[in-house]
């Protein structure tokens, strides 16, 4: 893997997090993990356990026969309301 490409992606992800903080949690794993995996560092016990727990938690949310988070389901379409103005002549 090209280290320069990895570094560029890390930087882009960091910029994107700053631009769209609502998705920061979704990419936090990517940001923290990528540098360690592609460097000489070893993935620590804490990092492993945190990832394992994170996916375990997803397993309690996404379960067959259980209601999914609403944004993963098909919800009714937005309704557009048309205001009808009537006038009555006296």
């Amino acid at each position, binding site marked *: *893997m090209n280290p320069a*490409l*990895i570094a560029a*992606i890390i930087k*882009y*992800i960091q910029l*994107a*997090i700053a*631009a*769209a903080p*609502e*998705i920061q*949690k*979704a*990419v936090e*794993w*990517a940001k923290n*993990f*990528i540098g*360690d*995996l592609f460097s000489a560092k*070893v*993935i*620590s*016990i*804490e*990092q*492993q*356990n945190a*990832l*394992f*727990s*994170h*996916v375990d938690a*997803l*397993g309690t949310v*996404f*379960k*067959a026969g259980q209601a*999914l*988070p*609403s*944004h*993963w*389901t*098909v*919800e009714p*379409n*937005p309704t557009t309301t048309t205001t009808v103005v009537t006038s009555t002549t006296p």
Partner: protein
Amino acid sequence: MKKLAQFILPLFLFVVLIAGVGGCHTNKLAGGGAYTSLVTNTVSGVVTTNTDLAFFVTDSAFTGLQGTIDGVFKYEQDNRAALWSISPNIKLSLDAIRPTASEIVVRYLALREIYKVSKTPGNLTPLQTALGDIKPVAAKIVLIIPNKGQ
């Protein structure tokens, strides 16, 4: 919306990259972590650490992909009225793929429970298959909003 689009594609690229790495680095997991296990040689008594890097990389890739999809779905829900006024096809296109994405995520997590109980190659393969199934779904999802559902 533009910022979200600019972010999603590189993130997806990254996840695909790391998903392809698995197995290239054999001693990257610290012993004692959730993706390692201790094995005692019954003859010599020597204790060694087994690392399940394939499982770690699979879970990492899944987390990235699921998180990416989750981010797009949530963004659409949070900005539904505005996105609908731009193009109803955004929601409609995401709605067409929501059941598929949900099914694969549920499947991955169920297969993961099986693998956790019995960590065999035969149980890891379906997990990696599910991961492979979610990649094209995520690839499709990340382009829906930037392409206005077309």
